[in-house]
């Protein structure tokens, strides 16, 4: 929600000037308007808005003034620079009426896009141009630039850091470069900030490392230059943003939109937006056309910030910031008793109040102060202020200059450093508080710096109001505030250090640790499928001079020379940031695009070059890769493996009758034409017969049986067969053979138990009954307990009873425990293969023969209460009543076989009956009112992995 707010205090219109640029001087009283024909200096005076004092100086030029700028330092306050075409003219405004050109800076070969005077040294000015260079000039020797910063793309903005005097930021298309002008060969940081051109860059007034960018893509991004991989914050607007500047107070942001032409909301042009904490809270409306420049009027009282704007509608306007707005930005506001709200219409004021009530909760302190104020009006001079400073813990005065009326304070505590500059205004009145600003080296985070400033300002104001010297108290406040910042943990301070010093290096190191992306791979999947992908044949690798093989880390992707013109390799500060805004308009996660581009670029550099020549046009990802989309090829490699799905389907598993099983399988393989394995099965059948025969013998004569047990046709043959096939990696034959003889294998196991305990033993050996088939079929992987043990369950129990006969002759074939264990592993592995082949019945048959231990895997068990006696049971019949435990809700008979139960109302019935019922009804057949079909499903949702 934003408040539409028209609070301009003054407005002048100068159509005849046709000015295209505007600037306000150091004193805040003179406005320079520059156009093709005229330079004009307008004197501002709040008290006298009728007096329109303007001095015009003719300027004959073919070119518009692209930029105009006053030097913002006290010694250089008479200097102003006008950028026009390839030249920058520096004028001096002498004696208040004479505007003389003192030098022309000629060095750019294309249009100069921006100029910026150094914030402290009035002889130093930075200019940038779309000829890709950013020059720094010393006005005392203006023949050639003292420093030239070279980039690949044309520069559109140049901005000196507001805190650190040697840092300068330049904008190149969608990217930001941060330079230390003392080291001009390469930028300190390179920020791949936006997809479209950056229109505006503004450094934070409070923090050395923070800046905000505004771009044609409609986004405003906050960056910390030490951690520039991702913006700290992003504001998305739906219009291109021409400028975004910090408010000098608190944490707000002002924006100008641009390029409304063609958009329906033309009337919105000229509106200045005020953003607080990422939301558009106010709009300054008044200009009828696009606002070209906005600057904060220098040297205004902290309570009375003023914005000066020049728009394409040829009007100059001054706006005051409403006190509530300042408060919202967490700015300390000295409340004057005579503060007037006259400029603001009542209606809009109340709406401001209403909209912001919840945000102004923290201003109660300010009001207390207001009530307690004592007015003593005594003048304090700058000398007295400085003399008042005594030695204090944690506070060190590093510089004190009566001439410039400034002093610098250094404070350090708990790993935090704060460097504060205090500037006393020249035209000091009794209640003017000094200006506090942060200097470089401050490592306190920006919300805290704002809070500290707020409390210092509050102290200063209170002391001034009381007529005391304020500096000492302000420093005390500073010391306490720094003390109160929570101590960082060691981790934090480490990361803080790294972020302060070598973030860009560590980022490099980060990519250099990440393995080079693989673009070719073969993976075995399923039973015998090979999944292969690789680069198309037309891909050629980028050849690196010093490396012959494929590079090992992703950082190598940055070492591609010649792609982006000479010089790029040296200036690239971190590896994966390819410099130009490629591909994917509307692809929001810009900071991640690097790697992907680079890997494509690495192999398709020809295409990349061709692409990068087509500047200006929108590039889509499709055209960048140009090639056909990557392919994956699946190879069927069944022939490599001796196992076969068709055979698996046909194999007979009948452990209860091993002889028959072996013979039938031998015949089966003979039909399939695999004589070798067929022969093996034949041998197995012989062995089985001898073992089986022996069991009969055993009943008659134990001596004979002993003889047979040692016969090579028994155990040894089977073991030899199994191990032969296992070694030749024919898992299928090996596992099937162990299946055929699992009865014998298990004899050792069961011998330790009583031979009578058949059914319990049967349960152990076959945790997999047919229930599991259904559970595996269910799509969700959710073993459905609704399906109750079927008839085949009882068959399984029957089988187990059969075993008991055979198991009794355990002495027949004794395998050592390790071999038995191995054979069970074969069976499990083969069951897994069958599962992958989706031969679920076959799998279950195999798993039945696997010895227990996997009970945990079997989760789909169901319990129910007997419908008569109420005892819990797991079986189909109740142990106490000896009747079927479940009664069908439809036919009212006991249920044997498949049953279905509702999870919610627990009514059950024959599966057939229930299915039929629910084709026609959706409520429970018992009439309990449960909508089983719908509601029971919802019971299961959210239970497991849903």
């Amino acid at each position, binding site marked *: 929600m934003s408040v539409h707010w028209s609070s301009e205090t003054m407005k002048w219109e100068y159509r005849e000037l046709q000015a295209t640029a505007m600037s306000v001087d150091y004193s805040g009283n003179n406005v320079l308007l520059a156009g093709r024909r005229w330079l004009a200096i307008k004197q501002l005076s709040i008290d006298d808005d009728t007096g329109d004092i303007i001095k015009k100086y003719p300027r004959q030029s073919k070119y518009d003034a692209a930029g105009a700028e006053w030097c913002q330092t006290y010694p250089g306050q008479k200097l102003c620079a006008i950028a026009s075409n390839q030249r920058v003219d520096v004028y001096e405004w002498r004696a208040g009426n004479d505007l003389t050109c003192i030098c022309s800076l000629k060095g750019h070969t294309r249009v100069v896009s921006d100029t910026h005077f150094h914030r402290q040294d009035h002889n130093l000015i930075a200019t940038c141009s779309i000829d890709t260079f950013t020059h720094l000039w010393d006005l005392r020797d203006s023949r050639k630039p003292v420093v030239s910063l070279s980039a690949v793309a044309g520069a559109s903005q140049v901005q000196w850091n507001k805190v650190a005097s040697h840092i300068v930021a330049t904008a190149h298309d969608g990217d930001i470069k941060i330079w230390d002008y003392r080291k001009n060969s390469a930028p300190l940081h390179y920020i791949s900030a936006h997809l479209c051109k950056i229109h505006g860059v503004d450094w934070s007034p409070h923090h050395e490392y923070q800046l905000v960018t505004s771009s044609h893509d409609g986004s405003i991004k906050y960056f910390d230059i030490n951690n520039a991989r991702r913006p700290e914050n992003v504001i998305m607007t739906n219009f291109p943003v021409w400028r975004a500047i910090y408010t000098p107070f608190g944490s707000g942001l002002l924006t100008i939109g641009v390029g409304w032409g063609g958009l329906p909301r033309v009337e919105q042009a000229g509106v200045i937006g005020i953003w607080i904490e990422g939301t558009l809270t106010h709009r300054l409306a008044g200009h009828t056309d696009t606002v070209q420049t906005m600057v904060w009027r220098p040297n205004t009282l902290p309570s009375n910030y003023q914005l000066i704007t020049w728009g394409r509608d040829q009007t100059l306007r001054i706006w005051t910031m409403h006190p509530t707005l300042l408060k919202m930005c967490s700015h300390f506001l000295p409340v004057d008793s005579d503060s007037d709200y006259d400029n603001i219409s009542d209606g809009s004021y109340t709406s401001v109040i209403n909209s912001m009530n919840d945000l102004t909760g923290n201003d109660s302190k300010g009001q207390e102060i207001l009530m307690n104020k004592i007015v003593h009006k005594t003048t304090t001079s700058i000398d007295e202020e400085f003399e008042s400073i005594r030695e204090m813990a944690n506070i060190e005065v590093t510089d004190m200059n009566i001439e410039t009326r400034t002093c610098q304070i250094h404070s350090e505590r708990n790993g935090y450093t704060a460097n504060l500059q205090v500037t006393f205004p020249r035209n000091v009145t009794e209640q003017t508080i000094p200006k506090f600003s942060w200097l470089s080296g401050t490592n306190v985070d920006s919300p805290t710096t704002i809070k500290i400033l707020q409390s210092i300002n509050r102290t200063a104001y209170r002391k001034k109001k009381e007529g005391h010297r304020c500096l000492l108290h302000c420093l005390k406040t500073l010391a306490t505030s720094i003390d109160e910042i929570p101590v960082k943990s060691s981790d934090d301070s480490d990361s803080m250090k790294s972020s302060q010093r070598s973030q860009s290096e560590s980022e490099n190191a980060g990519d250099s640790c990440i393995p*080079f992306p693989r673009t070719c791979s073969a*993976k075995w999947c399923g039973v015998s499928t090979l999944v292969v992908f690789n680069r198309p044949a037309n891909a050629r690798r980028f050849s690196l001079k010093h490396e012959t*093989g494929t590079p090992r880390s992703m950082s190598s992707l940055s070492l591609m020379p010649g792609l982006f013109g000479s010089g790029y390799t040296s200036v690239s500060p971190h590896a994966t940031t390819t410099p130009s805004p490629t591909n994917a308009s509307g692809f929001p996660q810009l900071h991640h695009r690097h790697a992907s581009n680079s890997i494509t670029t690495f192999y398709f550099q020809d295409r990349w070059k061709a692409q990068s020549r087509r500047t200006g046009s929108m590039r889509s990802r499709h055209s960048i890769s140009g090639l056909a*989309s990557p*392919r994956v090829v699946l190879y069927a490699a069944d022939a490599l493996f001796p196992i076969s799905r068709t055979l698996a389907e046909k194999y007979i598993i009948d452990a209860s009758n091993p002889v028959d099983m072996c013979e039938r399988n031998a015949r089966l393989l003979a039909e399939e034409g695999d004589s070798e394995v067929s022969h093996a099965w034949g041998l197995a059948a012989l062995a089985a017969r001898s073992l089986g025969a022996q069991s009969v013998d055993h009943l008659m004569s134990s001596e004979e049986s002993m003889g047979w047990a040692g016969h090579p046709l028994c155990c040894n043959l089977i073991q030899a067969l199994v191990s032969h096939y296992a070694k030749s990696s024919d898992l299928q034959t090996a596992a099937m053979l162990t299946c055929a003889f699992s009865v014998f294998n298990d004899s050792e196991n069961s011998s330790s138990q009583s031979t009578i305990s058949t059914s319990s033993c049967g349960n152990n050996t076959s945790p997999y009954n047919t229930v599991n088939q259904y559970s595996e079929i269910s799509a969700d992987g959710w073993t459905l307990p609704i399906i109750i043990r079927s008839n085949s369950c009882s068959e399984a129990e029957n089988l187990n009873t059969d075993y008991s006969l055979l198991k009794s002759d355990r002495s027949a074939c004794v395998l050592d425990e390790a071999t038995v*264990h191995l054979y069970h592993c074969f069976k499990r592995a083969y069951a897994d293969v069958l599962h992958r082949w989706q031969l679920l019945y076959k799998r279950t048959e195999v798993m039945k023969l696997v010895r227990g231990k996997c009970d945990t895997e079997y989760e789909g068990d169901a319990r129910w209460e007997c419908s008569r006696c109420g005892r819990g049971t797991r079986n189909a019949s109740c142990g106490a009543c000896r009747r079927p435990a479940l009664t069908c809700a439809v036919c009212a008979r006991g249920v044997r076989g498949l049953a279905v139960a509702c999870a919610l109302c627990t009514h059950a019935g024959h599966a057939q009956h229930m299915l039929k019922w629910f084709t026609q009804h959706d409520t429970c057949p018992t009439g309990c009112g449960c909508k089983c079909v719908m509601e029971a499903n919802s019971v299961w949702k959210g239970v497991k992995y849903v």
Partner: protein
Amino acid sequence: MISVLNTIDTGHEDMIHDAELDYYGLRLATCSSDNSVKIYDIKSGTQTLAADLKGHFGPVWQVAWAHPKYGNLLASCSYDRKVIIWKEAGEWTKLYEYTGHESSVNSVAWAPAEYGLVLACCSSDGSISIISYNQDAANWDVKKISGAHAIGVNSISWCPAISADLSLDPLTNKEASKRLVSGGCDNLIKIWKEQGDQWVEENRLEMHMDWVRDVAWAPSLGLQKSLIASCSQDKRVVIWTSDDNVSWTPTILNTFDDVVWSVSWSLTGNILAISGGDNKVSLWRESADGQWQCISEVSKGLGQTSNDERSTL
């Protein structure tokens, strides 16, 4: 011997980094530098795009399918430091997002289904995370091995449950230990064993002279020994064998012309598929006399094989 089953035009807008079929071989998941994961239904020579999963903000390095008994779950890992577990329930949605790593996550691997729903992932921040689903609490537990490999961990692989069981002495009636193998930028391969609720380093295997790019623990049946294959930036592939999963013996399988990127074991038969920076894929098998032999090779760009559907390896 080997025939093309299917050629899938992935429609990815950038290079792909991994592709895997699900348990049944019915669906293919691919991932790419275009930050997306795609899932295709594969049916006898045709494919249909089933899902295009967007959730990563960086190139996606690897995908892995979970065992179907846990539902249709797919894990993916990316340069954006995240692991996402996707679930199909009607349509594909994010089930869980793991953001515990501070650098690119290079590899993901599901544990054998017998261990429950457990995922291991490793990152360039040098750590390995083992994420397991706690069924009772319906949440995900994370165990982290910090500083597993200096500089970074490139690959991870689980010891198959059956291999683990094979090495177990059946008489002790104990649960087989869970093991993991990882390869990293410190040129080492490390074997990790779960003890109690901790993962401890059981062994470190030194042989490679440059970054280890991939490791794979073979589901080696019939050999009665464990096999691990590892490949490295030093262009070598090494096969490690062990009888007891404790002491390991290296054998250099081959030294290739270029960096080797991936090794993969077949489910049965111990056939190793190897691929690398030279764009070639080769298949290897141990002969009866214990020598590793190349049984098949493909060198040309597979992107070109669409016109030649019957091409063989």
